[in-house]
């Protein structure tokens, strides 16, 4: 028993090592599921995705600051763009939730989810992301560590977003329906069938954490891997349409994340019958 356990652990260690260094000497393709650590700050490992996410945050904050400060009653082009986008989002949320007040309250969350994920994915192929870095000598030879890495290829990020979305959905549900009514969706003692359905609902509620985080993570990472593989075969021209497609996928994923959060909120605030 112990033997097999340690064997599994050993095997896992090997795969882990492969993923960590992930240098396939012959092909030169470098794929890592985990973000690479660049440094340590007060005990918090600073990974390349963390640095990139700070840059994304800074970009969004700067855009927000300049757009918010230069608002005019007669809008310019940039202001019109933001006004149209935000008011479209708010209008759509109001239609879905059938509650303008709740839509207003929930708007910052949904909009920020969309903007953060969308900008991260838009900048996925910015020159420098993935290519700026340093070479370290380790026991496995020279290892290249990039300083920047697409934000959503880190499960920490997508899981953080998923947990925030999940908690918001549950909190809004409880706040709207009341604790007892909300709990009765999952603990239904009126009939055996109802009870079973409730338990399934409870599981699917928590399964959202996984589906939310892995959908985003998987889509973006798969796109990166695809590009890396194609680029290793045909480095010129062929990756370009694929990159376009991946940027499109990135935008779609941002919309999916925000929309699913919105729809799950709508489900959460719907009274059980």
């Amino acid at each position, binding site marked *: 028993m112990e033997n097999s356990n340690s064997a599994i652990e050993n095997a896992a260690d090997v795969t882990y090592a492969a993923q960590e260094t992930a240098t396939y000497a012959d092909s030169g393709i470098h794929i890592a599921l985990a973000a690479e650590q660049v440094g340590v700050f007060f005990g918090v490992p600073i990974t390349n995705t*963390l640095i990139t996410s700070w840059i994304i945050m800074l970009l969004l904050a700067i855009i927000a600051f300049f757009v*918010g400060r230069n608002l005019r009653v007669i809008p310019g082009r940039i202001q019109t763009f933001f006004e149209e986008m935000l008011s479209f989002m708010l209008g759509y949320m109001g239609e879905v939730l059938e509650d303008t007040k709740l839509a207003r309250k929930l708007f910052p969350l949904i909009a920020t989810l969309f903007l*953060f994920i969308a900008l991260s994915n838009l900048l996925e192929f910015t020159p420098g992301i993935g290519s700026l870095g340093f070479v370290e000598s380790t026991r496995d030879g020279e290892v290249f560590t990039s300083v920047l890495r697409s934000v959503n290829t880190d499960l920490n990020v997508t899981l953080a977003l998923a947990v925030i979305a999940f908690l918001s959905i549950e909190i809004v549900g409880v706040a709207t329906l009341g604790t007892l009514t909300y709990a009765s969706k999952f603990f239904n003692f009126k009939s055996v069938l109802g009870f079973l359905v409730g338990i399934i609902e409870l599981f699917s509620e928590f399964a959202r954490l996984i589906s939310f985080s892995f959908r985003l993570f998987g889509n973006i990472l798969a796109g990166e891997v695809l590009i890396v593989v194609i680029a290793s075969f045909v480095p010129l021209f062929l990756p370009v349409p694929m990159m376009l497609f991946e940027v499109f996928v990135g935008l779609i994923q941002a919309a999916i994340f925000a929309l699913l959060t919105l729809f799950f909120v709508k489900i959460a605030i719907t009274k059980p019958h």
Partner: protein
Amino acid sequence: MEEIARVFGLNWKLFLVQTVNFSVLLLVLWYFLYRPVLQMIDERRQKIEKGVKSAEKAEKRLDEIENEREGVLKKATTEAGEILSTSKDRAQEKASEIVSEAENRADSLVDSAQQRAEEMKDRALRESKEEIGKAAILAAEQILRKK
């Protein structure tokens, strides 16, 4: 579980940092972008609403004024017509009055003239009678003296 966490590079510190990051981003965007932009949209909507309302009001007022003007014009026209017709009537009345008065006066003048003519005739007659009487008396006296 630990294996999964290691393969995917899951780390609770990183997870917390990313959660805080997102929360900070949400607050920043709310404060600098969503709040002012939505406020601006609301403000503009109010302004447009106000503008539309005042335009409607102005149009209504214009209609009212137009109606009023028409009413006044109509009233003035009818009044003028009335005044004209009454003044015509009155003028005719006056004219006929004047004519009849003149006729009356002419009649009375003729009457009085006739009266006076008759009176004069009478007096002349009476006077001539008296004269004739006197002459007769004088003639008689003379005749008597001659004798």
